């Protein structure tokens, strides 16, 4: 009889803990995998890197660029409040900081530093498998296009 009572009590406590714990806390131990692709977009050429064909199709006529080349692809594994850096060209650095999970989304802070000074900052709510494009910084005869993706 006592064993049955203790078992019921333990089951109730386990269920209670599970239901009361928000999803992002349960997922708090999971790392966030961030993929950063650094792409150069220009109008001087019409060469499209094969790895970027899907991105170019997705962009469609949004941007008026004809040439896309993949300069760098970096994978970052970030724990909560951890930071990962990706060196862009010309003393520019992209910094990603994982701020934690919010239900089924991951909050990610992305900054661009130019010679150590912040020129751009954004906070993104990423879904698993989703991407955000950040473009515009001048690079050589074109612009930089950064594709930030997340998996968790």
């Amino acid at each position: 009889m006592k064993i049955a009572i203790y078992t019921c009590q333990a089951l109730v406590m386990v269920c209670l803990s599970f239901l009361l714990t928000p999803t992002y806390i349960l997922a708090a131990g999971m790392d966030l995998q961030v993929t950063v692709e650094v792409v150069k977009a220009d109008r001087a050429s019409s060469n499209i890197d094969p790895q970027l064909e899907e991105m170019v199709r997705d962009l469609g006529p949004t941007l008026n660029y004809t040439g896309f080349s993949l300069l760098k692809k970096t994978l970052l594994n970030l724990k909560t409040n951890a930071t990962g850096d990706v060196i862009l060209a010309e003393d520019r650095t992209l910094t990603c900081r994982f701020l934690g999970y919010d239900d089924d989304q991951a909050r990610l802070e992305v900054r661009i530093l130019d010679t150590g000074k912040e020129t751009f900052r954004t906070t993104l709510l990423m879904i698993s498998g989703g991407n955000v494009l950040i473009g515009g910084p001048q690079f050589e005869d074109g612009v930089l296009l950064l594709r930030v993706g997340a998996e968790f």
Partner: protein
Amino acid sequence: MTERCKNIELRLTAYLDKELSEADRQDVATHLRDCEECRQALCQLEETLAFLKQAYDSYPLPEVDLDQAWKEIEAKVNFGPSRWENFLELFKRPMIWGPSIAMAAVVLMFFVRLNVQDRQETTGSVAHAPVEKVLPPEPEQPVNESTDGPVRVCQVESVYSRSGNVMLLQTAGSGQPLIWILPEKKKEGEKS
């Protein structure tokens, strides 16, 4: 010993305890006056009773809680409380009503949480951090006609640019956000 003596001997104990009727007492008394054998039997009986009384008086009887004793007897005779009384008795114990209340709370919170999530989905009451730069309104989520609901995309919670000019666009295909940083505007008279 005659038959009459045997009959008298059977009534001697009652005679000594004065439990005989008046007629029987007279009958025994009359026989004792005439029968030496029965008088000796009566003496032996008196001595035996006196010895027993002395023995009882030497050892005091233990005190007994009669009420408790009756309850125990009744419990044993009635084979304990009924099943319904046993069931009700369980809820008087914290080990039982504690987990029961906890389980009821778990079920209640489960349904409350479901209800809150449903309301948030229908009213879109998801809080966003304040936007540091004025941006065009969030683009509509693209609807895939082959599925029941809109395709989920990432969201931009806040944006800041030193140049002060940022555009928030949407890719034509999947509708993913596209943040475009415009260059700083050159001041008038500044060499290009």
